[in-house]
């Protein structure tokens, strides 16, 4: 047999094997007809353990297959919406960032939670996270984990934690004068983190970005005050020169590397500090998120599980989602991966005490936390805001505010060009 002929034979065999695989993959049936539930979620180290427990508990009713999305939120959203827009039946349970609910619900890409499923998803769940899974009064997801940013500081450098952005700048100036690490890290890069910061400072000033219906721009005098506070902070001694390029992870690294004296960040930094720099941990303390005249409104984050409209096994997908976010799963996520639970009772679990010493601070912050605006065009609104505010040191409060008003109004109608 000639080489070419052999290669052709090989190719034909590969093609045949590929075709043979197709029907099985398309039918979504696993061994012995167990329906496969495809979970798409952001990377989370111990999620596989949570999935494994749920698969055992399912006793053959379904089998969850874990698929990991990209690390950054934009990459996650892009993959999900691209496939949902193409009516891809290969997605069943979707791990959603709290800001995507309105967009996916309005596009009818995710199913409403009703009846017994909705009752179970609501039972014992904290109010703020539950609200992020709701759009126009209907429930579209089951809250999995919540998140609030806190102020993290090194008590060896900063004996009394600052309560406002102004106090942070003053403390930094004092440290700088003594030649000590003095940066106060904040997510100032042109991305969602900058919107998170802006939203919290506006809320701390008593305002909001959009009206409660999510259809009109609010902003106004509180936004003007917020812009001034952010501009002044970005020009103060507390500002890392990398501030216009700082994301959550670079903030954490600056703190662990000893460049920074404090940071505002999510609680995952505590577990990270314990693992990477145990000698700094005894001095690594937390305090409420800074505000303008006193403690501020923390940014509210987190993730919820939704069921795709194109899922071929919706009933199993709802059950799988409920198991993935039940108290046992949430405790695993909290203890092993540092993700704050959405079920209040989990915070009282004795296993939480050691890895989660800041749990009361999280519960307190959740009471005043500032959710981001709810609108189906959140992506447009967010991109517009981060472009208008970047770099924060160049903000000219009245001019920037006028620009924000005009561009957010366009973004809400999905008109105009996205930067």
């Amino acid at each position, binding site marked *: 047999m000639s080489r070419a002929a052999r290669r052709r034979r090989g190719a034909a065999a590969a093609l045949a094997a590929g075709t043979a695989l197709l029907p099985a993959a398309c039918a979504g049936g696993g061994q012995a007809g167990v329906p496969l539930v495809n979970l798409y979620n952001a990377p989370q180290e111990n999620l596989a353990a949570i999935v494994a427990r749920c698969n055992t508990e399912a006793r053959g009713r379904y089998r969850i297959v874990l698929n990991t999305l990209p690390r950054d939120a934009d990459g996650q959203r892009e993959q999900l919406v691209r496939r949902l827009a193409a009516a891809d039946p290969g997605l069943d349970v979707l791990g959603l960032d709290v800001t995507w609910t309105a967009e996916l619900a309005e596009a009818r890409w995710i199913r409403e939670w009703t009846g017994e499923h909705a009752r179970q998803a609501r039972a014992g769940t904290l109010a703020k996270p539950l609200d992020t899974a709701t759009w126009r009064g209907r429930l579209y997801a089951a809250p999995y984990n919540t998140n609030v940013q806190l102020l993290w500081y090194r008590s060896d450098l900063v004996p009394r934690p600052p309560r406002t952005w102004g106090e942070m700048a003053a403390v930094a100036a004092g440290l700088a004068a003594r030649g000590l690490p003095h940066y106060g890290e904040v997510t100032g890069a*042109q991305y969602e983190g900058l919107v998170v910061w802006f939203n919290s400072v506006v809320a701390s000033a008593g305002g909001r970005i959009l009206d409660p219906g999510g259809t009109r721009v609010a902003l106004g005098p509180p936004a003007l005050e917020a812009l001034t506070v952010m501009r002044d902070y970005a020009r103060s001694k507390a500002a890392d020169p990398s501030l216009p390029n700082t994301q959550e992870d670079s903030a954490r690294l600056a703190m662990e590397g000893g460049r920074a004296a404090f940071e505002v960040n999510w609680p995952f930094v505590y577990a990270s500090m314990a693992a990477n720099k145990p000698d700094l941990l005894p001095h690594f303390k937390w305090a409420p998120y800074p505000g303008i005249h006193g403690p501020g409104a923390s940014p509210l984050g987190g993730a919820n599980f939704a069921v795709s409209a194109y899922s071929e096994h919706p009933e199993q997908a709802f059950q799988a989602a409920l198991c993935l976010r039940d108290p046992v799963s949430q405790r695993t996520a909290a203890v092993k991966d540092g993700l704050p639970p959405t079920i209040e009772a989990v915070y009282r679990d004795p296993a939480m005490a050691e890895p989660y010493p800041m749990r009361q601070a999280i519960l307190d912050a959740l009471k005043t936390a500032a959710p981001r605006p709810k609108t189906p065009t959140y992506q447009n609104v967010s991109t517009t805001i981060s472009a208008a505010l970047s770099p924060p040191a160049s903000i000219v409060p009245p001019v920037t505010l006028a620009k924000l008003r005009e561009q957010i109004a366009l973004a809400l109608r*999905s008109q105009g060009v*996205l930067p």
Partner: protein
Amino acid sequence: MNGGKGRALTEGQRAERRLGLWLCAPAALIMVVVTGWPIVYSVLLSLQRYDLRFPEDKAWIGLSNYATVLTSEVWWNAFWVTLLITVVSVAIELVLGMLLAFAMYRAIVGRGLIRTVVLIPYGIVTVAAAYGWKYAWTPGTGWLAGLLPEGSAPLTERGPAIAIIILAEVWKTTPFMALLLMAGLAVVPEELLRAASVDGATLWQRFTRVTLPLMKPAILVALLFRTLDAFRIFDNVYVLTNGSQGTGSVSISAYHNLIGGLNLGIGSTMSVLILVTVAIIAVVFIIGFGTAAPGSER
């Protein structure tokens, strides 16, 4: 091939030609389907209001997407940034590429080694190389950032960030330019250079009076290829800044509107405008400067 003049084709030649056309047909058809249809489709999309999140609002709106894009500050900023990156990077690449081409062509010892070393940047995946540059310029992790004064973060400022994008682009594609130019060098007859040298021409005179005029077709083709490529720059910008601080190229803008914003109308409008610009560049090169397509008679 000069079959074009033949009126005296024999029956056999005509049959052969028919067969030839039939054999080409499947390939030509596939080309039309995979390149022609997407272009037509994006033109059609650019005439509609079409946001994937609001399927009910889909409507034909004529040219208003074009009005929106062409009156947008964001688009024009991206356009001028792209043009700047294109002109500066292609100019630098031409000079460096010419030097490298000479080095590769004239080297007596270690020719294989020189050619291999020169081509390494071209062989590295752009995204991987771009991450290398990104980390190198990030304070705290980078060796290049460490050379700068304390407290500078070049990727966070517009001017330096664009300079770094150009640097990454030049580093990456100069070998390609050098390869194309080396092919042009090979067509300069050795006797001509020797004759010029006997007539007393200096090295510089031989370069400007003999080599350059003979290489002009190759240079123009190299410039055309690189300009078209550079105008569509995406991966370096995507990794290094993702368009923040006004450093986005037109392709980055189109991507953000299409994929991030799910706005098929505006995004397609941008894609069509990029296609039109690229076509204009090609026409200017071919008609204005007389660039000939490689392999043609001119």
